[in-house]
C-alpha cells in the first residue's frame, strides 16, 4: 500500500484538487467539506491555483494533536498560508517548495500533496495538502 491522504474527502479521488463545500441556498463556498452530511451543502472541486493572501511560519514543533515529526533536532519550520482561490474561498494550507524565509504575500501557487512525515516508511505515509510556487514564477 502506498501513501494515503490523511483523511477521506480532503482531496478529489485523483488528488488533483481539494474538495470544498458550497451552500446550495447562499452559494457560500468554504473548506473543508463538513463531516456531517447536510442536504444544503454540496461538495465542489476547488481551484488548484491561487495566490498567497497571508502566511506565517510555524517555528516550533506543535504539541498533540499534531502527528508530524516533533523531535526538536529534526523539526523543520513550516509555512502556513491562506491561499486565495479566485471566485471561491481562501484555503488554509502549508506551503512547500519554497524556503520559509522567501515566502511572499501575492505569490502564485498551485496545489500538491506532501507527506506529513517525510521520514516515515513509504507505506505508512499520510499525505496532506500543500501549495507550491508555480514554476517559472
Amino acid at each position, binding site marked *: 500500500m502506498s501513501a494515503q491522504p490523511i483523511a477521506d474527502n480532503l482531496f478529489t479521488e485523483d488528488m488533483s484538487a481539494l474538495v470544498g463545500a458550497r451552500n446550495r441556498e447562499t452559494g*457560500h463556498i468554504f*473548506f*473543508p467539506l463538513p463531516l456531517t452530511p447536510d442536504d444544503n451543502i454540496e461538495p465542489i472541486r476547488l481551484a488548484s491555483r491561487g495566490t498567497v493572501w497571508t*502566511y506565517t511560519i510555524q517555528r516550533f514543533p*506543535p504539541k498533540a*494533536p499534531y502527528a508530524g515529526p516533533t523531535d526538536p533536532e529534526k523539526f523543520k519550520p513550516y509555512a502556513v498560508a491562506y491561499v*486565495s482561490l479566485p471566485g471561491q474561498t*481562501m484555503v*488554509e494550507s502549508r506551503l512547500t517548495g519554497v524556503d520559509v524565509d522567501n515566502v511572499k504575500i501575492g505569490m502564485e501557487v498551485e496545489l500538491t500533496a506532501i507527506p*506529513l512525515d517525510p521520514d516515515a516508511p513509504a507505506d505508512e505515509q499520510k499525505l496532506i495538502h500543500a501549495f507550491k510556487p508555480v514554476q517559472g514564477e
Partner: protein
Amino acid sequence: MSDVCIVGAGIHPFGRTEGRDGMDQGIFAVKQALADSGIEWKDVQFAFGGSAASGNADNMVSQLGLTGIQFINVSNGCATGGSALNAAVSAIKSGEYEMGMAVGFDKHPRGAFNADPSSYGLPNWYGEAGYMLTVQFFGAKIMRYLHEHDISRETLGRVAEKAFRNGVKTDHAWRRSEVDLETIMNAPMICDPLTKYMFCSPAEGAVALILASERKAKELGVPIIRLKSSVMRTRPPGSFEVFAASIDNERGGTATEIASKAAFEQAGMGPDDIDIAQLQDTESGAEIMHMAENGFCKPGDQEQWLLEGWSEINGKLPINTDGGCLACGEPIGASGLRQVYENVVQLRGTAGARQVPGDPRTAYTQVYGAPGVSAVTILQR
C-alpha cells in the same frame, strides 16, 4: 436614565501563585472589592461570575457565605468577564436589584492553550497536520495587516516594549521588568512576524467588581465611577478568526468594530472623548489592530503613534496602562475585568507610579477573543 456605578474593585495579582487555586484567587479579589466599597457580602444581592478552567463561580458562596443570593455562572470564552459585567449591569438597569457583583478568575497551565479540533467543528486531520495552534492565527492575521497598511515590524516591538515598561509600575502585573526593543526584535520567532516577547501567556488571576445603582452608590458615599456603556457583540460575516480552515475572499468587519460602535452610541461619545484605553493585546499585533477597530486611529497610523509615544502613559491616549495581557498574562475569565479594574483605579487617581496625568475622566476597555467575540465598556468619573 440613571447610571450603573462601580463602587468597589478588587484584584488578585496576575501571574503565577503556587498553592492557591483559581477560585481562591477569586475569593481574594471579592474580599478586596467588598472592603473597597465598605460593604459586606450579605449586602450583595446577586452575582455573575465565571472562569474557563477553574470551576463554577457560584461555588464561591461556600466560602463567602450562604446568603442565598442569585449567583449565575457565565461561560463565554474570552468574553467571560465582559459578559458577567454586562449581565450585572442589565440586572441593575432593570430595577430588579440595587447592588451586585461581577467576578472572573482563572488558573491555566503553562504553554499555549491546547485545543481539540472537534470542539471547533473541525476534522481531526486539521490538528494532526499542524494547524491547531492559536499562535499561527495571530501571526497570519497581523502579517496581512502589516502588509496592507504598510506598518513595520518594529511597531510590534514597540507595543511589547511599552507593555513591559508599564508592567514595571503595576502591582498586579506578572512581568515586572523592562525589555528593550532590540531584545524583543531579536528574540526567537514563534510565528512570523511575532517573537516570543510579543505574545502574552496563559496565566492566573482574579478580578471582582461591585456594581450599584446610582441611588445606592450615593448612599454608600464612595467615589463613583459611572458605567456609560457595557456592550458585548459577536462576529459579522467575513471576519478572520482563529482555527479557520478557510476564510472568505470577500473580507468583512470585526466583532470589535460592531461592539465599539454600539458602545460609543450608548455613551453618547466618540473616540475623541476618551482619555484612557485598555485594548485586547493577546499579542502585539492585536493592540495595533484594535487601536483602529475601536476608532482611535486610522489603519496604518499606528506606526506613527508608537514612534511618537502617543499611547504611552503620558501620551495623548494612554493604552494598556497596566501593561495589558503582555505584562499581566491572560487568565481568560479575569482578563476583561482586569481592564475595567485598571480604569477604575486610573479614574479614581490612585494608580500610583502609572497614574495617567491630567485628571482623566473617561476610560475605555475592549476585550476580544475566540470565536470572534468582543466586549467594550466605557467608564466616566
